[in-house]
């Protein structure tokens, strides 16, 4: 008998609008611990907003967003910072801090949120940077990095605290096929070795087919398909079918 899966993230009837524009319309789904889900959809359909709602960087108009065992809606900042420690976030353009070196970008969360001594922080940063192929670039500033290196550095920062859940916003956009494939490999390793749940916003169907246990398709704020790649490719929804079989 298999063990029941723990829910990592759950949306319950989430609505979100910006002015007159409805971005998410009664969206409900859940993602189990250790599972990778790719969010697909046309531009402006609320994929990045979904990630920001999970991180509580923005709040929904109604509904509930659960992370692990906490509803992050209306949660006070102090409690929220505890929940955020379970999450790693790779931003679309990596969002590395310009004024800090790569090493400092990764050491910042470790020195602020853990009680690790400096030697241990050095070791962890070096190990994570080596994992993403940037072991010798710690002294560089983000301005000296290429697009692919920035993405890998952003991923390293998102993983440095070994989060239970990784949110990645277009991790392979703007990258060549080889670099994109390297990022996909990193994400898969992260899932298999650490059991990290992953929610990945992507337009890269090729990558999604490789990484995802399940695929969610958003269209005009509605969740129109949710299931395995095979299930979604046979979906009744035309947009979902087109996106996954393109």
């Amino acid at each position: 008998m298999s063990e029941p899966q723990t829910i990592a993230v759950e949306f319950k009837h989430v609505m979100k609008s910006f002015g007159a524009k409805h971005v998410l319309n009664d969206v409900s789904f859940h993602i189990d611990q250790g599972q990778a889900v790719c969010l697909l959809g046309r531009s402006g359909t609320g994929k990045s907003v979904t990630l920001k709602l999970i991180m509580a960087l923005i709040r929904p108009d109604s509904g509930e967003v659960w992370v692990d065992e906490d509803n992050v809606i209306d949660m006070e900042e102090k409690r929220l910072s505890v929940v955020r420690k379970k999450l790693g976030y790779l931003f679309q353009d990596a969002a590395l801090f310009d004024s800090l070196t790569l090493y400092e970008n990764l050491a910042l969360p470790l020195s602020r949120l853990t009680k690790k001594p400096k030697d241990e922080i050095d070791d962890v940063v070096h190990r994570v940077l080596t994992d993403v192929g940037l072991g010798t670039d710690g002294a560089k500033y983000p301005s000296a990095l290429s697009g692919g290196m920035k993405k890998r550095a952003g991923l390293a920062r998102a993983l440095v605290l070994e989060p239970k859940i990784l949110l990645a916003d277009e991790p392979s956009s703007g990258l060549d096929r080889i670099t994109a494939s390297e990022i996909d490999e990193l994400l898969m390793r992260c899932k298999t070795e650490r059991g990290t749940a992953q929610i990945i916003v992507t337009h890269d169907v090729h990558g999604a087919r490789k990484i995802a246990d399940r695929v969610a398709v958003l269209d005009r704020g509605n969740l129109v398909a949710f299931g395995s790649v095979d299930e979604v490719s046979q979906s009744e929804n035309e947009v979902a079918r087109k996106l996954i079989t393109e």
Partner: protein
Amino acid sequence: MRWLSKLFEFVGKVGLFSLRVIVDSFRPPFEFAQFFRQVAEVGNKSLTLIVVSGFALGAVMTLHTRSTLVMFGATAMIPAVQAVSFFVEIGPLVAGLLLAGRVGSGIGAVLANMRASEQIDAIESLSIDSFKFLVVPRVLACVVVLPFLTLFMDFSGLLGGFLSEGLSSHIGPTLYFNRAFDYLQWSNFIAPTLKTAVFGFIIGSVSSYFGYTTDKGAQGVGEAATNSVVLSSLLIIVADVLLIKCIFFLFPDTAI
């Protein structure tokens, strides 16, 4: 009347933002590393500009003062006029305006760029209070550094005045500086220098407000830089009027 309600809304927002800076300045954890980094940045960026401007302004002022005082046979008063005018008003005000242009625009642009490139969201996602991490150290750095920059402005102005006057009348440094400080009282020096801490607070708060709260992406970066300079310069001049009244009230001797 719509513009009036928008104006009040804006004033209220800037006021609440500034109040949050004050409250968060006394609330742990304290961002000492960020504060010292900002102190170094603000001082580094502005010191040369302040010293060169003060020196040039001092030389020009002496030339103008001389041409007037010569008519009354009072050229011996030039060092005193120079010292009093620099320490009481020109040094603090010009240092404030220069810092608003040099550092205020930088703070506005940097924070707006961080907002546009999601760096502020990234800080929040790392469970770090972005306001305390980015805004408070910048404002406090302006508050602490501006009085020191004002001193540099005052003394470089006096030095510029001495060189200009020395070339015209061959006055020696000892006599010049003795005359300069003869008429200067502590109240002429301490209160006007300390009032620049308020100017620093205005520059830091206003610039941080425009940068931190922008939501216009890349376009917001330029707007934040421009608005930071315009509004903080304007507020410095208005605050100067009010602060002079306060100084006259606290030190009646200086009002005579």
